[in-house]
């Protein structure tokens, strides 16, 4: 039994935490609520310089040669810091789609540039309300051109290319679109967490190139499973940080002549958050192992991790505000940053209901086997 991260992963975690404490303070996240600050772009470039954007990608295409553990460690630390960078959409969805489903030429053209931070990619699946499903994809791919509207698209305003889900004659497929090319219109949209900007992307006969490995809904669902694991780690990181913030405040804030953390009303609430966070951590670790080692276990493990972490993050974020009292409801205090991010992450790959249903489907498959 060795259910723990490797020494290498722990070193990477320490490095990431130190780096982000310096380069990604809460003030940067708050600044990003108004407009993407130049420091966020600088942070992304520095992450590329550290090799973080190539983690888990093939070394032949500029990858860093590290595996799922490293990817998850980075996702968790970026989540802790609420980093206003498109790691989930750019690295874990778009680049992952190209790495898993792209042709050798597509991989050679894009992966080195994405890993180096010279280009960024968005992933466009959602088309408004509704959970991910083959029927919810109405965009069409015909004769190498896409028509349709995608929203919300993370990093859609800034990205160079997008991996877009569309229907062709055979069903759902993924295709690459140059977002600066003809037939693409992009509009920024307000999100519950503005520190990760999203766009409404409309394609009108936009030239598109299929990813040959992504044929059918199962390929897209498999990508969602793979992305759900680092997404769970991002939520876990945010949840841990929100709990730590609440605990620190409960020790320091006094009322009725004592630290509020000495009242059982606060203690028990925060103990419950701790329990939720630790269960989520265990589920996330197991999903990390499944991502690295066992494709058969991944669907159930990924859904369990996602549901667990999203719920823990929301619980930690809302109780952090509650523990802070009135000051926690102000714009200038940090707790709302966690509250916003928790809800953005919980809907980024389909909402909680979607992942619970996916968990049940995987559970029934596992039981039938």
């Amino acid at each position, binding site marked *: 039994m060795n259910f723990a991260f490797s020494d290498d992963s722990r070193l990477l975690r320490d490095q990431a935490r130190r780096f982000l404490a310096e380069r990604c303070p809460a003030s940067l996240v708050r600044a990003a609520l108004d407009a993407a600050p130049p420091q966020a772009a600088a942070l992304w470039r520095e992450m590329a310089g550290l090799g973080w954007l190539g983690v888990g990608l093939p070394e032949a295409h500029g990858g860093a040669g590290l595996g799922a553990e490293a990817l998850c460690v980075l996702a968790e630390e970026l989540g802790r810091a609420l980093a206003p960078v498109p790691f989930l959409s750019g690295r874990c969805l778009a680049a992952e789609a190209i790495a898993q489903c792209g042709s050798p030429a597509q991989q050679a053209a894009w992966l080195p540039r994405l890993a180096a931070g010279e280009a960024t990619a968005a992933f466009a699946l959602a088309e408004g309300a509704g959970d991910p499903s083959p029927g919810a994809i109405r965009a069409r791919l015909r004769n190498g051109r896409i028509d349709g509207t995608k929203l919300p698209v993370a990093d859609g305003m800034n990205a160079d290319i997008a991996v877009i889900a569309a229907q062709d004659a055979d069903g759902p497929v993924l295709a690459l679109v140059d977002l600066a090319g003809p037939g693409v219109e992009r509009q920024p949209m307000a999100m519950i967490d503005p520190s990760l900007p999203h766009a409404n992307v409309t394609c009108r006969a936009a030239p598109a190139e299929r990813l040959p490995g992504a044929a059918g809904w199962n390929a897209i669902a498999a990508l969602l499973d793979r992305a759900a694991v680092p997404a769970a780690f991002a939520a876990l990181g945010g949840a841990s940080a929100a709990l730590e913030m609440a605990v620190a405040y409960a020790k320091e804030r006094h009322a009725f002549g004592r630290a509020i953390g000495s009242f059982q009303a*606060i203690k*028990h609430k925060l*103990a419950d958050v701790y329990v939720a966070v630790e*269960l989520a951590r265990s589920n996330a670790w197991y999903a990390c192992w499944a991502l690295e080692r066992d494709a058969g276990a991944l669907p159930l493990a990924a859904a369990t991790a996602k549901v667990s972490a999203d719920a823990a993050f929301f619980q930690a974020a809302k109780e952090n505000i509650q523990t802070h009292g009135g000051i926690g409801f102000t714009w200038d205090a940090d707790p709302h940053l966690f509250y916003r991010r928790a809800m953005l992450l919980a809907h980024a790959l389909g909402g909680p209901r979607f992942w619970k249903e996916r968990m049940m489907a995987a559970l029934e498959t596992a039981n039938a086997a």
Partner: protein
Amino acid sequence: MDFDDTPDEAAFRAEARAFLDANRPRKDRARAAPRYGEVDAAELARAKAWQARKAAAGFAGITWPREWGGRGGSPMQQIIWNQEEAGYDVPYDVFLIGLGMCIPTLMAYAGRPVLERYVRPALRGEEIWCQLFSEPAAGSDVAGLCTRAERNGEDWVVNGQKVWTSGAHFCDFGLLLARSDPAVPKHAGLTAFWIDMKAPGVEVRPIHQMSGGSHFNEVFFTDLRLADRQRLGAPGQGWKVALTTLMNERLAVGEPRRPDIHDLIALARAVAIDGRPAIADPAVRLKIAEWWADSAGLAYTRFRTMTALSRGQTPGPENAIAKVVNAARLQAIAAYGMDLLGQAGAIADPALAPMAGLFQDGLLAAPGQRIAGGTDEILRNIIAERVLGLPAEPRVDKDMPFNRHAPAR
């Protein structure tokens, strides 16, 4: 990360499994589970026979020193044994408190003659031990106990009452915590002893629980005379001894009580809502998914604990997580299972209720699970204070001589 045993662990697991295969049938989940804590004479005899066989084969006292009949093994081996044994149909474990908590305390505080007399018979299941800490006015606040132990020449004389003593009605010996000095603050005036439960002056009265069973007892002491050699630790050091006992409780985290998530899934497959299996109902699926996430999280949390043990680390108060989650989830799952049965939900007749009334039994047992061995509230205090480092609740009686505030009890 990997879930594989080390070669040593794998060898021990194979050895354990071979012994279990040769001696017990596999557990059948579909068969009725024994009602909570119900131990009649026949079950007690089965439990003693099984313990004797385990001890003879070296699977009792796995972490104990060889010198006392143990295996001299690791906590990891104990966990592997627990995992394997859980898959077989074995009698109710009436030795858990004695071997898990009382004898280890004896090993820490008793002299050699006492250990030579008592350890091996306990390990072989011939003598059973109980723990006599809680009192009517000292439950969560156990250091507030009132049972008096007074010096009388070379001896001690004990008067008072204990309560919630698991298995006292079939136990031979017990670990007693009593107040030897009421004139000092409560934690400083306690002394620990081991006692003979059959001695004159000890009276055991079973408590009829709300679940219908009688697992717990009241124990009354009337001029119970103890020799000074029955004292554990110095006079006034009883709280320290009690902490040793309670620390050992942490490793005794077992499988969740039933009905568990697997039972709920089985029930949801078996019963119908609107003409189709309940498990096809979207609302049912959402509930099961949430409990699955918690159950899986707990199972994997145990892997983290095992990893720590495997590396020679000692698990800390974070183990309170398992009890907080399991007890509340047992109650919730039991109630939801009854909901799935609709108008038949309240039928408790094992001949009529699905799965022999497992859900109804679980519902009636669940309140006890949330109280015994640390209430939900005390466990949350432990997590908040010892894990998160939040300040302790002010305790007005902490530094006051016990007899200055005792009349309020």
